[in-house]
């Protein structure tokens, strides 16, 4: 089945130690998104790619970076994780023209020790 896959399901890192979260998709969708969701909060958009065009949200900290080497893969890099970056990170995709239908992965729960 076509899907959005996030690995790992749980990620533990140390304060200040760079960490990379990965997302892959078999849907061949143009758009890929990264959302951050803290406990009992709304998912918050960090950035998205429309094909290779990167769109950063104005309030996304510089600590968060992203890479999309090809259509299928997208990475979230946290350069120096702080305790406040502990959250669920959700990757999503959408097809151009059907932007409202996001297809989410199961998420990566990041813990920062």
């Amino acid at each position, binding site marked *: 089945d076509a899907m959005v896959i996030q690995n790992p399901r749980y990620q533990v890192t140390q304060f200040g130690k760079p960490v990379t979260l990965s997302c892959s998709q078999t849907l061949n969708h143009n758009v890929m998104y990264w*959302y951050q969701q803290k406990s009992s909060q*709304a998912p918050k*958009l960090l950035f998205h790619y429309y094909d290779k065009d990167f769109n950063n949200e104005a309030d996304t900290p510089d600590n968060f970076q992203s890479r999309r080497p090809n259509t299928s893969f997208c990475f979230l890099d946290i350069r120096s994780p702080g305790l406040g970056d502990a959250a669920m990170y959700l990757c*999503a995709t959408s097809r151009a023209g059907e932007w*409202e239908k996001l297809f*989410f992965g199961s998420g990566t729960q990041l813990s920062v020790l």
Partner: protein
Amino acid sequence: DQQVKQNSPSLSVQEGRISILNCDYTNSMFDYFLWYKKYPAEGPTFLISISSIKDKNEDGRFTVFLNKSAKHLSLHIVPSQPGDSAVYFCAASSKNRDDKIIFGKGTRLHILP
């Protein structure tokens, strides 16, 4: 500053009865509204949407009502079934904002036997 508000963190409804989930928004530029459903350990999945030119959209047991003057929308599930137990996210977007989707915090729906 929450632009999409779901003021009920949780809701319990008897199986077979109607579930009504409410959502308020503050941004009058929003012109498209969505509901997503999330099961534990899974990513949210698209459920139903409504454009601001409509006041009702129905899909099987799910109906979304939009009251633009009150900046309020609701999701009705009739009849409620055990498989409807999940977290429901209300979301909104505007074509003038690069199709960015803003989510609410979610409402956890429990369907009681």
